[in-house]
Each structure stands twice: as C-alpha cells, then as structure tokens.
C-alpha cells in the first residue's frame, strides 16, 4: 500500500513538472490567425494528457527499477502474479473513453477551423516548382507576395501547375496540399499584423527547401492602399510591352526560378541575359537573341544551358505577342 501512495504522489508531481516544462519551452510559433485558436487549445489539452500519461508509466517503471531491483547476492524470484482481469479491463476501458473524447474534441476543433464566412475575400494561388503566384480576382492584381488584410477571412483557391505542393504558414497553423488538375480550398483569418513566410510543406523536387513566399498581414487601410497602387501599376504596365511582359512573367511564376538580380536560382538569371553569349551543355555557345529566348520558352528541352542539364523546365504556351512582350521585359534587365 505504501508503494502505491508514494507512486501516486510522484505521478502527480512529475505530471505537473512535465507540463510546466512543456509550457516553459514555448513550443509553438506566434498565434497569427483565428483558426490557430482551436488548434492551440487542442494542443494544450494534448500536452496535459501527454504529461500525465508520461508520468503514469515512467514513475512506476523507475520506482520498480529502484525499489524492486535485485540486490547484491540476492537470488530467487519475484512475486508470482499472473495478471489481474479487472485491472486489465480498467486500463482498456478508461483509455478507450479518453481517446474517444479526444476524437470528439478533434472533430469539434476541426469544425472550428473550417467556419465559413460567406463574405470571404478570394485569392487564387498557383504553385509550381518552385514558386508561388497570388492573384486577386476582384482587381486582377497579380503578386508574388501574399498581402492579406487583418481580421478578414480569406478563401485561397489553390492549384498546381506540376506536382503536389502544400501551403503552410506556421503562424497560421493549418496546412493544405495543392494538387495539379484540381482546386483545393484553404480559409484563413489573419489576426496579427506582421511579416510571415509561406513554406511549401510537401516535397516537390530538388529546390523544395527554397519554395518560399513572403506573406504580409497589414491593416485594412494599408491593404486597400497597396491594392490600389498595384492596380494602378498594372494598368500603367499594360500600356508598354515590357510592362505587359513583367506582368506575364510574374503571373506564370517564371521568377521563382529565374532571378532578376544575377543570383543563381533553379534556372539561369535573366540579368544581362539579352544579347549575351550563353554556354550550352554540349560545349557550344549561343547568342541569347529573340529566337533563342523564344525557343527556350516554348521548347525548354531543346537546348540546355551549361550547368542546368538536370532541370526540367515546364513547357509554356504563349502567343507570339506575349513572347515579344516577355522578351521586351528581359531586354530591360541590363
């Protein structure tokens, strides 16, 4: 009996200690969305249960190892107990009730994260190896940064151009895969202004680690200002070929692989590309003129730039006018 009392006290003590340890360790990133609340609430409940169950097993185990160890020179066996059916039934039934309770709460908290606001703002998300594009259908603005207004539910309609990707901003908690050939939905209500990082969470190829995008949560007023400026920019851009070209390459995710500042990405940089001589994988060189750039867009596998032999660029279909616009944009990158 004395053993049981000591163990019970130790279990309570260790549970409390473990739980406060877990709390002190700050195990979750900032809470930046409404949907994070039910998730974190369930996390907390999980941590409490984990602390208790951990102690419930570890304390009697270590206690037995110390108290019931075979002392020096001792021989003979332990107490002959084959089992205890009521006890077995107890520790089958109670966990059964607990896990079913957890399943119920899990379903409940899942439901909370799925609450639908019919007024939600729609953003179309396109994922591809290894870039993100965000389109705001109400204004037609396209961006490679995801701007979101605070305290407004956003409905992301997401699709992929190639393989499976996954949308994850750790501070928002929820995650949703993005599939080619169909649209998956993701609802989020940001509640904390700040800069976040969107990180692709489903292995999508060699540069998966770098498939990131910036997410900015701003006040409603700042959001509207940003949106107006971007819309104005887009209208002005539509008047010039290089402006239209820039919109096209942003919309189609080209900049996910081709940098504009000379840094090496998944594909070659576009800075100073136009008119330069490009070394190819077969040892020859070619001048990056209109014909070469056009071929590289429409038939990317026709020629490989040296050092990029293993990269499979997706095939794009653009009209001749669009390609002329893109080339005009690339020409400006001196």
């Amino acid at each position, binding site marked *: 009996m004395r053993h049981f009392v000591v163990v019970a006290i130790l279990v309570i003590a260790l549970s409390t200690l473990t739980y406060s340890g877990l709390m002190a360790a700050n195990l979750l990133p900032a809470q930046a969305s409404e949907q994070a609340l039910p998730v974190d609430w369930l996390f907390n409940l999980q941590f409490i249960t984990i602390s208790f169950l951990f102690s419930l097993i570890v304390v009697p185990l270590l206690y037995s190892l110390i108290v019931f160890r075979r002392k020096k020179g001792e021989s003979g066996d332990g107490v002959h107990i084959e089992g205890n059916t009521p006890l077995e039934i107890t520790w089958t039934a109670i966990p059964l009730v607990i896990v079913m309770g957890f399943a119920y709460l899990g379903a409940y908290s899942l439901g909370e994260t799925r609450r639908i606001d019919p007024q939600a703002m729609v953003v179309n998300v396109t994922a591809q190896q290894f870039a993100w594009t965000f389109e705001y259908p109400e204004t037609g603005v396209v961006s490679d940064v995801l701007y979101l207004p605070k305290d407004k539910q956003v409905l992301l309609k997401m699709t992929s151009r190639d393989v499976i990707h996954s949308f994850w901003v750790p501070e928002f908690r929820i995650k949703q895969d993005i599939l080619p050939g169909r649209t998956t939905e993701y609802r989020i209500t940001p509640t904390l202004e700040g800069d976040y990082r969107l*990180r692709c969470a489903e292995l999508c190829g*060699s540069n998966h680690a770098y498939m990131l995008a910036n997410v900015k949560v701003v006040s409603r007023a700042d959001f509207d200002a940003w949106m107006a400026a971007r819309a104005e920019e887009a209208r002005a851009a539509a008047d010039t070929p290089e402006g239209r070209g820039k919109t096209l390459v942003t919309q189609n995710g080209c900049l996910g692989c081709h940098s504009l500042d000379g840094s090496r990405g998944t594909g070659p940089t576009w800075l100073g590309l136009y008119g330069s001589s490009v070394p190819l994988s077969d040892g020859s060189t070619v001048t990056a003129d209109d014909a070469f750039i056009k071929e590289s867009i429409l038939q990317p596998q026709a020629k490989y730039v040296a050092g990029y032999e293993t990269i499979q660029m997706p095939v794009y279909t653009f009209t001749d006018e669009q390609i002329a616009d893109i080339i005009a944009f690339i020409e400006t990158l001196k």
Partner: protein
Amino acid sequence: MKTMNPVWRGLALLLAGGISGYFIGLGLDTLVSKQVNFTAPLAGLFSLLGAVTAFFFGLVGYHGVTRGLVFQTIGTLIGGFFVTGIRALMGLETFGNFFFTEPAWVFGALVGTLSFLAGVGALTDWFKWALGESTPEHHEDEPGWKKYFQLSLDHKVIGVQYTVTSIAVLGFGGIFALIFRTELAASQLQFLTTTFQAFDQNGLQFYNTLMSLHGMLMIVSILLGIAGVMNYLIPLLIGAQDMAFPRLNAFSFWIAVPAAVLLLSALFLGGFDTGWTGYPPLSTRSPLGVQMFFLGVFVAGWSSILGALNLIASVVRMRARGMTAFRMPIFAWAAIATSIIALTATQLIGLSFQLVMFQRLLGMGFFDPAKGGNPVLFQHLFWFYSHPAVYVFVLPGLGVISELLPVFVRKPLFGYRWIAMSSLGIALVGFLVWAHHMFTSGMNEYLRVPFMYSTLLVAVPTGVKFFSWVATLWQGKISTPTPMLFVLGGIIVFLMGGLSGPPNATVSTDLHLHDTYFIVGHFHDTMFGGYIFPFFAALYYWFPKATGRRMSEKLGKLHFWLMTPSFLVLTFAMMRVGLLGMRRRIADYDPALGFDLSHLIMTVAAYLIFTSVVIFLYNFFHSMKYGEKAEGNVWESRSPEWQVPSPMPVHNYQHAFQVVGEPYDYGLPGSKYVEFMKSQEGKG
C-alpha cells in the same frame, strides 16, 4: 594467398574490384557519351558491384552469393542489351544518359534479379523437381562459417543471414543519414551545394536521393531484421525442426539481396527526389533512379510476403505437443500478428509502385490528372500498406520486450492473454487507419473524422501493453544486464513515440504537424523503441544461443548508455523544431528561424549514436570468436531453447519436448514449461 585470412583477402579484393569496376563503367560511359565524366553514373554503379562481388569472392570464393552477384550483373546486361536491340530495330533511341534507356534498365534489372536467384541456387531444387529428379530432404551444410554465404535450408542459418544482411543495410542507411545530417548541422548549404556533382545529380538532388534512400533502406533493413529474428527463433520456440517450407524460406531471404542491390543502384542512376513515399506526379518526373527504387521495393515485397506465409504455416502446424494457443511464447503471437499484416498488405505497395512504373514506361495515366487520373489515389494505395507496415516493424520488437521482461524481472508476464490479444488488436486496427497520413492531401474532408477515430483507437491496445509491462516490473526481482537495459530503453523510447502520436491523430493539430520534423521525431521514436532497441536486446540475449559465446557486458553497457540519451536528445530536438516550423525533407533551412543550434545538437547526437553502433559492431564480430564461453542457460530462462546446450545443434532438439505448464511461471516453485521426451514419441 592460401595462408591469408579470408577477411583480409576479401577487403583487398574489394579495393581492387572497386577500382577495376570504376574503370570498366567509366570506359563504357565514355564509349557512349564520347566525353570523360569522372562521376559518371555507370562508373559508380560498376565500382559498387565490382567491389562487393570481389569482396565476397575473396571471402568465400566463387560460390553462393558471389555467383549470384556475377549472375545478376550478367543478367542485367543481357536483359538491357535485349531491349536495346529491339529498340534499335524499331528505330528508337538506344543509349541514353545512363548507358541503357529506361525500359532497358527496368527489364535488365528484372532479368538480373532472376539471374541472381538462379546463380545463388535458390531455384535449383525446384528446377530439378520439374525435371523429375529427386533431391534430398535436407541439404547438409558444410561446417564452419562459409555456409552463411551460400544457400542453406537451415532456418538458423537463414536467420543469421537475414540478421547480418539487415545490419549491413542498416549501415548503408545510417551512413547516408550521417551525410545529410552533417549538411544540416548549420543553415545554408555547406557541401551539397548546387555546384556539387555526383552521378548526374547536383547537391540538392543528391541530398534528396540520400534522404529518400535512407528511409527505404532502413525499412528494408527492419524487414530483414525482424525476418532474421523470427526465422531464428520461431522454430526453436515452438519446438519445430525447421520452418514449414525450407526452400521457400531460402528463396525469401535470397530475393532480398538483389532487392538491396537494386535500391543502392538508384543512388548511381540519377537518384530520385521523391522520398520513400514516391508520390506521383513528382515520381513520374524523377530521374531513372526512381525506377530502381520501385523495382527494389517490389522485389523486397516478395521476400516479405513469402516469409510471412511460411511463418504463419509453421506456427499453425508445427507446434510442440501441448502448446495450445495461450501457452505459446508471447513472441509467437507477435510474429503471427506481424505476419498477417505482411502477408495481406504488402501487395498494395507493390501494386502502387508498379502502376507508377507502368505510367512512366507505357504512358498510362493512372495518376495523371491530364489523362483523367488522380494523384490522391496513389496515396490511398500506398498507405494501405505503408501504415500497417509500421506495425509490421514494431510488433516483433514489442514481442521481444514481452518475451524478455519476465526473464529479468523473475515474475510472470502480467496479463499474458491481454498482451497476446493486443498484438492482434493493433494489427487489426492498423488496417483501418491509413488515411491519417493524408489529412492535408485534399481527400474527402469528412472522411478525415472517421480516420481520426480509428487512429486514436490504436492507443488502446498499445496502452494495454505499456500498463502490463509496468505491472510485470512491479514487485519483481529486477536485474539489468545489457539485454534488459535495451528492453527498458525500448519501453521508454516507444513510450515517447506513443505519446507523440495522438497530436498527429487529431485532425486539427495534425494540420500543423503534418510534414514537419515533429513527425520525423515521432516515427524515429516509434521505430527505435519498437524495433532498434528490442532488436539489439534480442541480439545481446540470443547471441550465446547462436554462437556459444557471450558479447562483452562492458561494451554492451557502453553502447546502451551512449545511444539512449543521444537518441532521446535527437528526437526531442526534432519534435521541438518541427512544432516551431521546421519542414521535413529539406536540404536547407531559413537561418531566420533560429534552428542552427538545435540542428548542431542533433548532428552531434547522430554521430554519438553512430559511434555507439560501431562499438556494438566491434563487440558483435569480436565476440563471435573471442567472447566468453556461454554454453548453458545463461539467463536462467524457462524457454525451451535454453534447456539445451549452445550453440544450437543443427537439427534443433534431439528429443522433442512437450509443454507441461505456463511459459512465464517465474516464482512458482516446482513449475516447468517444457519437458523433454526420452523416446521418439510425439516427434514430427
């Protein structure tokens, strides 16, 4: 040469074979591509094949495994040239980046696998029977250690073959992990950079290949390891002379060897970047290596299915007199539960991989949305095996824990029937939970809830095991030699895996945890607690039975005390960074996340684990020859295999035994589990 130690001879030839293989591959590659590429895929592949074949040639001469490997190489080339010839006649491309084209490699690899089996002799008896010739019931093995490198029908030899192969594959998987763990020690890319080149892969691609192969090799290693332990033990525990189908048993083992070769060849043939899950559409775009990976898994699957069939047949039909279901050693229950899963679920991973292979080779659209296919379908098929598979990995380990605990506690196993039934319960529920790997996948949203319920149910039978183990320890007379330390370590580590499970099971929290390092930490805990620790416990415990010698206690304890804390630190750090935003399967992480120190700690812990395993390997191989003699019942066990001298005689028990009591009645004076029969009564 005659007087040279065969191991040294093997190692010398390993070097020579590796170098000559390298130049043969380089030559062939240069011939086709017309330019010299020192990290050519073919050079790497031939170097590996040459080295391994030459090593075995030096060790045992042109027999058994050496002949198999030579046959496999020649068979692959014949198959490859056959398809290349047909392609040439059809006017298709004949040679590609990797010498052969993809269809030629796939066909060649299949021919190579069959050639290996023919070369090693696994098919010989069946061919003879087909021709009407008779063969002896038992082939006598030659005495000494060379029998382990040749075809043997003795379940004990096959058990050792499985175990040693498993340790070899574990070594490859572990070294791969160390390489990419080193890259992760600090943020940014250090050596696997974009300018790094090896076997047609840049650093990032090579990282993905190593990471993917680490996963799959470890899985194959675990499958071989449990097969090894079960093969060695089950006939001994149930009092049989051998497994039910000895030739099928040998076949099941030997087919795993070409499978391991195929998996390793993926490293050289362009690698693959899909992870072990091989999700399309990514896997339909991956380099050739992914085909070798699919084929390797497909072939290894045969080993698993046939091995499970054999095991179930043996336990059902060949138990000693008086060994009723609830008087079987508890390990037999675990083996049955695991074999039921392996026998009935493995087909699904083979099928799903085969479908992707066909999609790549024949242009079918099973998982291609543009052709009306569905990538999520693959995930369902894949996880229908791959979730139950984790119970295949852990159930035998949990069985080892239940088997050894009473011996070192000197007390009956608490709630024997409950533990036996909990194994079956886990196996059964394990079939109903696969979609919990797909909560974010875009599968039907409402279906996530029933899968959450079924997943959480797994906690109930698992809990029964934990509570019963703790109750077994209560009021015992506990001693802690090395095997018991690993049993206790297994319980603690598996508890960590178990406790970190429910947050992944409840959907909303899993939406945060899915595809993060939390998952990585969680499953490494379950795999180490459910397999690695019990596997080491079993090796330390039954080593004297197999060799008649003991492994060093001092080194064993060093192994344990180095590995356990390092491993716990490693997985705690993994789970912590995962919760805070570290994704899985990335070669580089954002320095802004502030994970550099955590990753450095993880890398150091990984090296400490590696060191501890090296200590184990030294202990293992050194003790085979020089260990302290231990021919009696070293652990004072009641189990039948310890009632006869070690090492175990060739045909197991000279006199059959019958079961006269409960298996774990420690502490009950005068009780006995088995009684040997003097005459021939009840034999067979």
